């Protein structure tokens, strides 16, 4: 069982992106001349089948670069990374949806890819018809679908509505039916993108169970992309960490997840946009910098659960307006769920200038884990509001649990669920 099933060598994929050139002064004559030449070039391209670009300046962007790895049969490998790290591109290359620009992939088995739940489902067709349609799209033969039909229906739990057009299904039923078809694929290699993000918790558990089954009991190879670290660590023995199109780490899942978290918090306990091209803001206000520190003003990314965490944001108000510009922070956990939003209270309209907003999260409030912060400012007018800027995942930090000296734990060392874990006051009276 140790033969290589996927071998990737020097793989790269680049896209050409067109930019519109900005010009200060534009004459009508230039516009006509430019557009005519673009027009004729477009027509020429249309007949010769060349690539057409939107703008005049064309930039080559490498979505993936120098990717090398080998996967053995029966392994379940997770692929993690921040948005835009190239995860989806890698899956698209592996499932032959798009062609690589460089390098080569060797696949020693049939690949089925599940980049979306219910690809090709037709709303007008009934559940029964869609099972056949979707099965064929995913690469199953008619005979194969027929023999598994009852199993699929059973797994999905929509027997009653088999002959109803799926457009009348609830979104939950739709997803269940779609996953049921996909779960009964029997390829040597199964490629799965973030598909567990849909459906209710119970169904997610069922899916995860089915996928564990596929990889561990049936000895098939699974490649799984997800932002849900829990799912990755439950299913995969190894993981690949992608960062800006290259592999940063390929190791056991535990090590890779640790690296992912340390990396993301490492780069993001502070930022300064003063000398960068990146700008967040509009005519009224603009973000300058931000950082996370403890109550001794030490900037850091790891906090014990009983430490206070202070989040500070510097911004510039560029125009005197008669409405308050209100800083607000949005907190996300590692699963990408928003835990809470804090809004600065009672802000008066401020004059032009540079301001610093800071807000403290009390000790013993957040649960252990990695947290991401979105920094934003909003102007509230009499009847409406305007968002001045938002910067997602601007900062991140990790809350580390103290297993000892923690009044909540009583020496219990296991994980405690929940988005937050506040230390609240209890009163216990003897009333016997």
């Amino acid at each position, binding site marked *: 069982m140790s033969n290589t099933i996927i071998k990737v060598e020097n793989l790269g994929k680049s*896209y050409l992106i067109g930019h519109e050139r900005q010009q200060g002064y534009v004459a009508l004559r230039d516009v006509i001349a430019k557009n005519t030449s673009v027009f004729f070039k477009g027509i020429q391209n*249309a007949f010769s089948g060349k690539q057409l670009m939107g703008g005049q300046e064309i930039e080559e962007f490498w979505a993936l670069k120098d990717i090398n790895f080998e996967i053995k049969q029966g392994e379940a490998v997770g692929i993690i990374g921040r948005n835009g790290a190239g995860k989806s591109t890698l899956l698209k290359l592996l499932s032959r*949806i798009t*062609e*690589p620009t460089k390098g*080569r*992939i060797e696949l020693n088995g049939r690949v089925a890819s599940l980049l979306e739940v219910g690809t*090709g489902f037709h709303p007008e067709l009934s559940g029964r018809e869609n099972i056949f349609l979707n099965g064929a799209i995913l690469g199953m033969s008619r005979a194969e679908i027929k023999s598994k039909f009852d199993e699929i229906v059973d797994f999905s739990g929509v027997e009653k509505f088999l002959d109803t057009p799926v457009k009348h299904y609830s979104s939950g039923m739709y997803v269940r039916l779609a996953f049921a078809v996909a779960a009964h694929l029997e390829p040597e290699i199964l490629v799965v993108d973030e598909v567990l993000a849909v459906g209710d918790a119970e169904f997610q558990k069922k899916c995860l169970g089915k996928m564990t089954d596929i990889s561990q009991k049936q000895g098939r190879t699974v490649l799984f992309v997800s932002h849900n670290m829990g799912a990755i660590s439950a299913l995969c023995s190894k993981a690949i960490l992608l960062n800006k199109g290259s592999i940063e780490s390929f190791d056991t899942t535990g090590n890779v997840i640790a690296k992912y978290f340390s990396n993301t918090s490492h780069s993001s306990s502070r930022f300064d946009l003063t000398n960068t091209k990146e700008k967040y803001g509009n005519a009224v206000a603009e973000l300058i910098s931000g950082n996370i520190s403890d109550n001794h003003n030490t900037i850091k990314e790891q906090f014990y659960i009983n430490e206070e965490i202070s989040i500070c944001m510097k911004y510039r108000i560029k125009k005197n307006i008669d409405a308050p510009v209100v800083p607000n922070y949005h907190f996300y956990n590692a699963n990408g769920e928003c835990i809470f939003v804090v809004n600065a209270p009672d802000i008066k309209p401020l004059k032009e200038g540079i301001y610093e907003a800071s807000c403290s999260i009390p000790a013993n409030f957040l649960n252990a884990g990695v947290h991401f912060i979105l920094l934003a400012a909003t102007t509230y007018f009499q009847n409406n509001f305007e968002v001045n800027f938002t910067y997602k995942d601007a900062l991140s930090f990790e809350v580390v649990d103290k297993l000892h000296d923690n009044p909540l734990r009583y020496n219990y060392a296991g994980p405690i669920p929940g988005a937050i874990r506040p230390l609240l006051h209890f009163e216990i009276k003897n009333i016997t």
Partner: protein
Amino acid sequence: MQLIIEPGRTEKNYWKDLWRYRELFYILAWRDVKVRYKQTVIGALWSIIRPLLTMLVFTIIFSRIAKLPTDGTIPYAILVYAAMLPWQFFSTALTESSNSLVTNSNLISKVYFPRLIIPASAVIASFVDFLISFIILFALMIYYHYTPPLQILLLPVFLIFVFLTSFSLGLYLTAVNVKYRDFRYIIPFIVQFGLYVSPVGFSSNVIPSKWRLLYDLNPMVGVIDGFRWCICGDKFTQQTLMSMSISLAITIVTLIFGTYYFRKTEKTFADII
């Protein structure tokens, strides 16, 4: 089974793949047929009504009002309908297939399969409509007590002919349409304009000989003349043979060029759709 993915690798097993995915081809064609008249009251009757109504309009305007001369003893309705059938098929097949890739963009960006399947199944779905609308032809024959000539047995040859003509053009147009959506606006125009330069409301004999060559460049001329020959028993002249050869040549060239162009651009569909 081993599969190697490399840039620019002309997959030698493309045609083999096409064969392997034949089930998907059936099922997509079946879907297109099935979905076409969903949520309509009269369903598949539409495939009969559309050519029937057009035929009636043509008959009334050209035969009754304009009093266009018809050669022979064949009822004008049959004359028009024999031409309306392939024309209607050509126009729906062209419209459906040229939009097929764009309307199936969700499939293209999420699953691999030989993309050729998509326009092909769109043409097949129109073909089913086409076969259904033959019912009216038989009804007309019975109504006018008309006995078709013996060459009607050759009709299947022309069915294949019109299929290839529509498919080859549709193949090229759908590939271009992925990148340049302009073609979405051009196609209705081609279809509308084409009706007037094809011998649907008139007979090819009325075309002056100095314009004949230009007229024959429309591949549907040969096809429609072929249908007329089979159904109405038009005389098979040197001219008919000429028109058909030109049509066939154009169809073959378009098919080869269309397939080549489609295969060449196919790999980038997922990136630009």
